[in-house]
């Protein structure tokens, strides 16, 4: 049995479920599933333009591991683009930095340490943990 994967730290999960190709009559190819650590890798590297070493530090993995995650997501995206498959975001070994949501105020927020869980705007304690 292989060693279990270390949890990758990610700052925020995507707020939508994935992508689907436009203008095709019937689905070709299989759906591609991108997990949350891969989403975070492409976000850090190609959207926020960090170096791989910086990104690896933020995700709490070694630089070579980060490169493997990044390679894997690039291949998956290329596969989906060329074959016209849908992309879903799901799964992965992740430790999500926690964000909360208040449905009444329609805001997402983090909490301070050592503080009760309530919405910063309406002070209501009815809040949902995102994950």
């Amino acid at each position: 049995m292989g060693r279990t994967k270390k949890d990758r730290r990610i700052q925020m999960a995507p707020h939508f479920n994935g992508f689907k190709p436009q203008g095709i009559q019937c689905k070709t190819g299989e759906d591609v599933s991108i997990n949350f650590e891969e989403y975070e890798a492409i976000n850090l590297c190609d959207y926020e333009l960090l170096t791989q070493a910086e990104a690896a530090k933020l995700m709490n993995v070694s630089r070579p591991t980060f490169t493997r995650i990044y390679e894997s997501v690039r291949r998956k995206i290329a596969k989906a683009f060329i074959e016209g498959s849908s992309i879903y975001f799901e799964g992965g070994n992740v430790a999500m930095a926690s964000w909360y949501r208040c449905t009444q105020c329609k805001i997402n927020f983090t909490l301070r340490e050592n503080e009760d869980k309530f919405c910063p705007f309406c002070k209501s304690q009815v809040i949902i943990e995102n994950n």
Partner: protein
Amino acid sequence: MIIAIATNENNLQAVVDLHFGRCTWYCMFDTENRKNSFIENPAKHNPEKAGCDAAALLIDKKISMAIAGRFGSKVVDIFRRNNIQMVIPETQQTVSEIINQIK
């Protein structure tokens, strides 16, 4: 408690900026006397680490909450370490709408 709101204009009708590090102004709102002031973001055109520099400036001003449409991952890291609350509104709102929601 002082709250920093990222905006692109220095008036209360401006909408909350979509990105924390690259906005033009921060509206500093004090919840105790309900007064606000605007400070300019000096790091707006930095090629990199705009968010980090802006965050350092705001931490000096002793803020305890920051509101913007998006926070970069370096900024999220800094704010979490300094125990500052981050808020992301889901719909586009003006600064005065946000201030009225804060009780």
